[in-house]
């Protein structure tokens, strides 16, 4: 094969996924770089979409635990009910998705063998194990409360009594559950995830607030939904603003948030989140509009997770995102060195 053929051939192998898409061409000039037949250098995480759903349901669970406790403490039973349900369902489904990705429940238990601070996945598992039982008890309390009085005795009565303090612990342990997932992604060699480490926790926390607030808007009666609305709109704003900032600080790999499947999810996330937040503000007096905007906010949050997830995989598949930034760093005379 001649050098020319070989070159065309390398191009061909690199092409396909991203090359030639108009969005990208308009953004940055094509980065020149060399690679081994255009093959990937770092390996993309071998994760299915389960993990993206896990990020989403974990966010809903965490945000809802906060909302549920707030609602309980301020006497908003309607909001408290839907938030506690969201917390429990979110928790159970995130454990389901995690186990589904691992393949076997015993493998989930295997995670409990060690506590490892350098492994966000280990830290996250322990956070869930700490948060889960309290959130679960708080949610069970919600069910017990509507049971006939004569059943609220004995162990059930005790559980009911404990559910309130449990709710407080659940709310206090919820935020790390929402935030650690960002570290989970960032602590990898996947360019788009690692590059985003400064802002990603804020994006994910904002997204968690938007989704759980959205759930509150869907389920709570209008006169109780105020805090959910505020939580959702605030979260949506943080998500939108910080996501923008994140793209600026990421460098080259931010490209992957605009191209391919990830680009579609991120665009959907933006549209849905803006529409949902606007609807939530304008629809204060309309139950229908509240429900609609709540749903949009939840869908927006899910799209954000899917978008960030896909962008990472795309950035690992194309060696450009590994080689070019490192090469530029070295060319500028700043290779990474240990300095005393």
């Amino acid at each position: 094969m001649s050098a020319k053929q070989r070159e065309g051939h390398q191009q061909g192998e690199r092409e396909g996924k991203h090359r030639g898409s108009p969005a990208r061409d308009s953004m940055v000039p094509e980065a020149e770089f060399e690679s081994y037949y255009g093959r990937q250098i770092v390996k993309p995480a071998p994760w299915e979409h389960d993990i993206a759903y896990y990020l989403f349901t974990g966010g809903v669970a965490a945000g809802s635990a906060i909302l549920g406790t707030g609602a309980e403490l301020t006497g908003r039973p309607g909001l408290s009910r839907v938030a506690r349900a969201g917390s429990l369902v979110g928790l159970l489904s995130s454990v389901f998705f995690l186990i589904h990705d691992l393949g076997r429940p015993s493998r989930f238990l295997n995670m409990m063998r060690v506590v490892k601070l350098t492994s966000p996945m280990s830290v996250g598992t322990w956070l869930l194990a700490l948060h889960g039982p309290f959130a679960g008890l708080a949610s069970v309390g919600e069910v017990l409360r509507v049971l006939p009085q004569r059943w609220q005795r004995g162990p059930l009565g005790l559980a009911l009594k404990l559910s309130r303090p449990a709710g407080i612990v659940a709310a206090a342990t919820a935020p790390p559950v929402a935030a650690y997932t960002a570290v989970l992604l960032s602590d990898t060699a996947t360019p788009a995830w690692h590059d985003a480490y400064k802002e990603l926790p804020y994006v994910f926390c904002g997204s968690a607030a938007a989704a759980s607030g959205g759930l509150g808007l869907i389920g709570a009666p209008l006169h109780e939904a105020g805090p959910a609305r505020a939580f959702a709109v605030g979260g949506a704003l943080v998500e939108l603003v910080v996501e923008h900032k994140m793209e600026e600080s990421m460098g080259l790999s931010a490209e992957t948030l605009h191209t391919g499947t990830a680009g579609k999810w991120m665009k959907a996330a933006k549209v849905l989140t803006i529409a949902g937040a606007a609807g939530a503000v304008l629809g204060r007096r309309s139950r229908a509009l509240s429900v609609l905007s709540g749903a949009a906010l939840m869908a927006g949050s899910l799209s954000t997770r899917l978008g960030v997830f896909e962008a990472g995989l795309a950035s690992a598949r194309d060696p450009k995102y590994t080689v070019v930034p490192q090469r530029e760093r070295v060319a500028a005379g700043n290779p990474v060195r240990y300095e005393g």
Partner: protein
Amino acid sequence: MIGRNSLFGPVDPAADAGYDDHPKRKGFFTDTSVCIGCKACEVACKEWNDVPENLFEMLGTSYDNSHSLNANQWRHVAFVERPAKPPVDLGMPSMGPGGVAVDAVTQQTEVAGSAEDMDFRWLMSSDVCKHCTHAACLDVCPTGSLFRSEFGTVVVQDEICNGCGYCVAACPYGVIDRRKGPDGADNIGIAQKCTLCYDRLTEDQVPACAKACPTESILFGDVEELRQTANDRVARLHEQGVMDARLYGNDPEDGVGGTGAFFLLLDEPEVYGLPPDPVVTTKDLPAMFNRAGMAALALLAGGVVSFLGRKR
């Protein structure tokens, strides 16, 4: 056991992992300038470690039929086609059979025909797990399945790994991988990579690949000594006018704290499929947890504020 340099910086990995009394750190020095691409190392590795065949993943895009390091390929010989370079004019008569290895580049072009006929040259390089000083795969493993051996190497324990795949995404060199096939193979769904023949090391044996390499392109030994050998070799090649020769991964102050398996390359690392300036991701882990902690507090505060000042 967590020292100041546990996440980044020069450190003796075995001591850092808590071995009080341990043998000298072991590793590989792969000198690609004498590699002839025979793939004996690939075969020896598969034979000794019972690594299943990989051919069903044949790509057919180059002469390289094993294409990458992965769960079923713990050693990988890259065949790099490069545009030809004008032959190095040393301006001195001493270059010849007496010199060290005659400079593999010239040698290979001679085999294939006269240098003028060729518009490309071959570079061969046998790649392997780097057994990093700061191994991201090991740091992120949630089960403790990956461990640091007394030889300073990184080894997977098949029985403990739960196949979460975190190590796969964390390795800055794209080495470790979860085994997908072939059907019937052991350890499907389990992370796999070079163990530096841990079982052989404990018996005072040389790893299979180094043993099989006919040109001594793969040298096994104490990392400290290998670094010395590598420096000498690169200096000699420079003297011979092979100015493209460079070491890769040998520097204890680089982004991964230096690797246990390092290389002499004849071109830029990325040409061989290696990252030019990799950094262990856990270097930034404290900052990541800080940011996440702040974001978490902000979320809690947001929750409180949402309820404040609202009448019921």
